């Protein structure tokens, strides 16, 4: 099997200390990988390292072909419409002194349609909600036709419908042969959609494997410092993960006002 990205002994540190190290995993073509971990565990940093934006401090990455990164957010300095933004995804294919042609426009419109976001084409990116921007940025990654897709919390600002829509789309893209990885704070996303999970529990404690194996109740409860239950809903094929927020509330009373 082709492996567009494989990392061996990967480590990155800021001045304060290691963000992560000894990281071994691969993103294979045709697989959807979910990256989970608490806030500040280095998920975005890892995507930055994988996309070549930051050189790794330790270890090595093997990359095959181009990749597209969907950032969490973006603040362009000048006005852009949704369509303008998506067209930028074609930059690699447009030569220096040229502008996108009809084929590029068709691809941009098709990508927006795939995300059920046609209505954002003429809307100004400035005035879009966080979720709408995410849809446009995902469409932008799609038109680049890269074999590897990295997404930084693509569902963070999306309602449940668009979460399901985007994750189903990522699943589809993986089935079509792309290597897709996304970060998320929802273990259900990993359990319901992903083939692999990279769990970043602590700088030197990670797990990489099938969601069922990696995301047990104990691992999740420890990861989020909160009771997490794995439940099988009636009629469901697989079990999901539910945080028990009430338990946390009962155990740890909020500070008195």
């Amino acid at each position, binding site marked *: 099997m082709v492996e567009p990205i494989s990392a061996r002994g990967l480590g990155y540190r800021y001045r304060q200390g290691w963000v992560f190290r000894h990281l071994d995993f691969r993103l294979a073509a045709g697989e959807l990988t979910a990256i989970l971990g608490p806030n500040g565990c280095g998920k975005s940093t890892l995507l930055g390292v994988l996309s070549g934006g930051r050189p790794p401090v330790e270890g090595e990455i093997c990359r095959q072909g181009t990749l597209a990164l969907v*950032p969490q957010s*973006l603040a362009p300095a000048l*006005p852009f*419409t949704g369509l303008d*933004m998506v067209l*930028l995804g074609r*930059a690699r294919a447009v030569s*220096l*002194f040229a502008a996108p042609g009809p084929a590029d426009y068709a691809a941009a419109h098709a990508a927006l349609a795939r995300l059920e976001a046609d209505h954002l084409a003429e809307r100004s990116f400035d005035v879009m909600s966080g979720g709408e921007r995410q849809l446009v940025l995902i469409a932008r990654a799609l038109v680049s036709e890269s074999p590897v897709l990295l997404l930084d919390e693509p569902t963070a600002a999306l309602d449940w419908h668009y979460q399901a829509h985007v994750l189903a789309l990522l699943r589809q893209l993986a089935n079509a042969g792309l290597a897709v990885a996304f970060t998320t704070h929802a273990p259900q996303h990993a359990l319901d959609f992903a083939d692999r999970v990279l769990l970043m529990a602590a700088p030197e404690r990670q797990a990489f494997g099938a969601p069922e194996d990696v995301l047990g109740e104990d691992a999740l409860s420890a990861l989020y410092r909160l009771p997490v239950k794995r439940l099988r809903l009636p009629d469901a094929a697989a079990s999901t993960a539910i945080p028990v927020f009430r338990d946390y509330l009962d155990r740890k009373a909020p500070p008195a006002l």
Partner: protein
Amino acid sequence: MAAATLVAALLALAVGRYAVPLDTVARVLLAPIFDLTPTWNETEAQVIWAVRGPRTLLAAIVGAGLALAGAALQSVFRNPLADPQILGVSSGAALGGVFGILLIGTGWPSMVGAFVGGLAALGAVFWLAGGNHGSGGKGGTVMLVLAGLVVGAVGAAGIALAKYAADPDNQLPAIVFWLLGSLAAADAARLWVAVPPILLAGVLIIGLRFHLSALAVGEDDARRLGVPVRTVRLLTLGAAGLATAAAVAACGVVGWVGLVVPHLVRLAFGADHRWFFISTALAGAAYLILVDTVARTAVAAEIPLGALTALLGAPIFAVLLRRLRGDAHG
């Protein structure tokens, strides 16, 4: 936009101390092509071909050049308030021109000096900020802006010194008038100074339009999208510097065009990169033609063009600033 520019040019050719009817202007202009029987007198033809023609053409090319330079810099610096003066190129060119006047005299020395000064300022900005280009991100842009500030300050200080050292009877007035900016001296020589560099810069900037617009999103992001960030930035800064130096060389310091015109175009037509830079060039041409027409016809004596563009530009800019703030709140 092209039509508006054409109308502005016709108007500029018609009005003035010696008024020529619009239809006569059109006929005089078309005469070499269509072989019309002259219904105009020699003076009218002379006014149009020898006096107002070069001046209008120079206004158009300088306006287009400054507007394009401003639009391009706004994309590169990711700042809608950037303009050629940010780079320090205007100051550098002005200093070069002033030294030309001081050491040799008015006319071609000031033009050559402005060219040399403008390009030297651009070189200095590159050299000061050069170490940061590789790392990209915001640091690179901040360094460039600071470098532009430093070069601009050196230029301003040099100009002050030159004024102090200048002979108050003939050199000082020449310096002051040239710095105010004027198209009154437009002739074939000045057109040759302005047209080729500004055309070259315009072709570069309009050619780069798509990748240039990508820079406005962010350097790291653009790089990941596959935009050759360094090449685009280098070519754009070079083109903007060249256009500014040529404009200053031809008619002194005419400010605010690069800041105001791209914003007016965005307000009127949106920022679609397919047409934005071309519309900006045309709008810049129309804008400077009109402002120059006002400058030479509004009152008996000619108003300095640079003063008028600032007088018009600053309030427009103030309105834009308020609107920008309004957007940020809403």
